[in-house]
């Protein structure tokens, strides 16, 4: 259960942190329909995060609830991949990050939908539908922006160059994943194949850049994040931490 708790934290933190990045788009989106859609995606991910964090708190024996885990852990105890925490850029950056994450996470949830843990399998079974919508949303914008104007094409290439090197971390197994038999490496091929199809339709080249280096072998899954993570958590946690023990 300690390993399963740690795994729920990893997936829950991915969802929570990406949700926070999407929320930062609200009142800043290029069109009102996108305000609605991004809020919708953010709500899906926030819902997944709440169920996964709650499950982690049950499994690790600490009795911590979703809020205790979200608001009172420090940065090094957060286990999300670095891709989801990077600062927001332009809308192309938003679309590309969603595309990379949703394609990989849908593929993962599909495999977890029959996991032995009833909560994890339920989150995955519902999540696979949600993520399929996220991937569709991101794919359709990828195609429109990639095959839109020269400027949108250029911005999409820049976003791909910036984000692609962080994708590899999603396929790099952590020891907890290996012990649980949920090695993410087999996701790599189908995810890349799917991304290749979308990028081809979008007239965008598949980037070839290698993954970003770790720090002495450690990265997001080990609590070693980027410099974007501290300010993100500071903002997320500031009100809750100003009122220890309060109920909201």
């Amino acid at each position, binding site marked *: 259960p300690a390993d399963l708790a740690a795994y729920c934290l990893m997936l829950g933190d991915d969802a929570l942190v990406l949700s926070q990045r999407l929320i930062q788009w609200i009142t800043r989106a290029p069109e009102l329909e996108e305000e*609605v859609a991004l809020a919708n995606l953010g709500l899906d991910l926030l819902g997944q995060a709440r169920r996964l964090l709650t499950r982690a708190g049950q499994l690790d024996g600490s009795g911590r609830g979703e809020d205790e885990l979200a608001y009172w852990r420090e940065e090094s105890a957060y286990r999300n991949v670095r891709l989801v925490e990077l600062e927001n850029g332009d809308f192309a950056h938003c679309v590309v990050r969603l595309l990379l994450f949703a394609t990989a996470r849908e593929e993962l949830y599909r495999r977890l939908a029959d996991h032995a843990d009833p909560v994890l399998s339920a989150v995955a079974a519902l999540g696979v539908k949600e993520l399929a919508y996220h991937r569709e949303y991101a794919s359709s914008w990828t195609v429109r922006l990639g095959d*839109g104007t020269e400027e949108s094409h250029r911005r999409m290439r820049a976003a791909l160059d910036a984000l692609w090197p962080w994708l590899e971390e999603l396929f790099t197994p952590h020891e907890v994943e290996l012990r649980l038999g949920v090695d993410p490496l087999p996701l790599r091929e189908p995810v890349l194949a799917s991304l290749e199809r979308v990028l081809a339709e979008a007239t965008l080249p598949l980037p070839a850049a290698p993954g970003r280096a770790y720090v002495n072998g450690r990265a997001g899954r080990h609590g070693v994040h980027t410099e974007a993570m501290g300010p993100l958590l500071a903002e997320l946690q500031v009100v809750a931490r100003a009122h220890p023990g309060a109920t909201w």
Partner: protein
Amino acid sequence: MEPTERSVGRWVVEAQAQFDAVVAAEQRVEPRDWMPEAYRATLVRQIAQHAHSEIIGMQPEGNWLTRAPSLRRKAILLAKAQDEAGHGLYLYAAAETLGVDRAELTEKLVDGRQKYSSIFNYPTLTFADVGVIGWLVDGAAICNQVPLCRCSYGPYARAMVRICKEESFHQRQGYELLMTLMAGTDAQRAMVQDAVDRWWWPSLMMFGPPDGASPNSERSMAWRIKRHSNDELRQRFVDMTVPQAEHLGVLLPDPELAWNAERGSWDFGEPDWSELQQVIKGHGPCNAQRIERRRAAHEGGAWVREAASAYAAKQAAREGSSG
């Protein structure tokens, strides 16, 4: 056969009579019906201002989305922001039935030719403001908007039915947040009182200037766009809110607030209309910030909208050539 001037004249007179009869009978005017130009212009201005208020109104609360102190409150607030964007969409669609388009209205908003509710030019300074906006600002909006569900213009009336239902839900959530905070720590209770102190008077000003100083009201009433005077609605809001404040345990910051048994209503003090005038003229604490944010989103998103159009055009051409 071209209609003669006289036949056009007679047709207009008949159409006007028909319009007047529909309005007087509390029936709905629909987009294809003839309507007086001034009626159309009044509606466009009012619906646009209302749509703009929904969109600008996302900012003060949106300010707390990333900082909401529990994940449940974060989800509630995010769903509310999503609803508001949706309300904006309905209302712009209602305005479009009158022959204007959304892009044009957005341009008028960001260059200051059209207004939005002045209440959103005040800052949200603590998380309690989220609750107080739900309670007081949404509450005042509902007082203003419920009569609009019976507005003579059909698309606007139908949009308002849906919007009012969701607004009531938001108001209850706001009040529930405040109940939770008032049952919490001293610091939480103090946050609520401070937020009420800051939002009470601006909320009262949401009903507009006193009746004597409200020039367009009479015609809007005749057209069944407006149904109650500013002062009537303000009084209704005060009477509804005072017992809620007592139940919450907060003090409304008005020493003149007193039950008037004779009128069966609460007496209350005069808002600082000069501050409201400053805010209306663009000099409020957040006017520049709100418009700037909206302008930045709109202009910063231009390349995205252009790309979407370019892609749609390419697709249409491809389908045309293959079909």
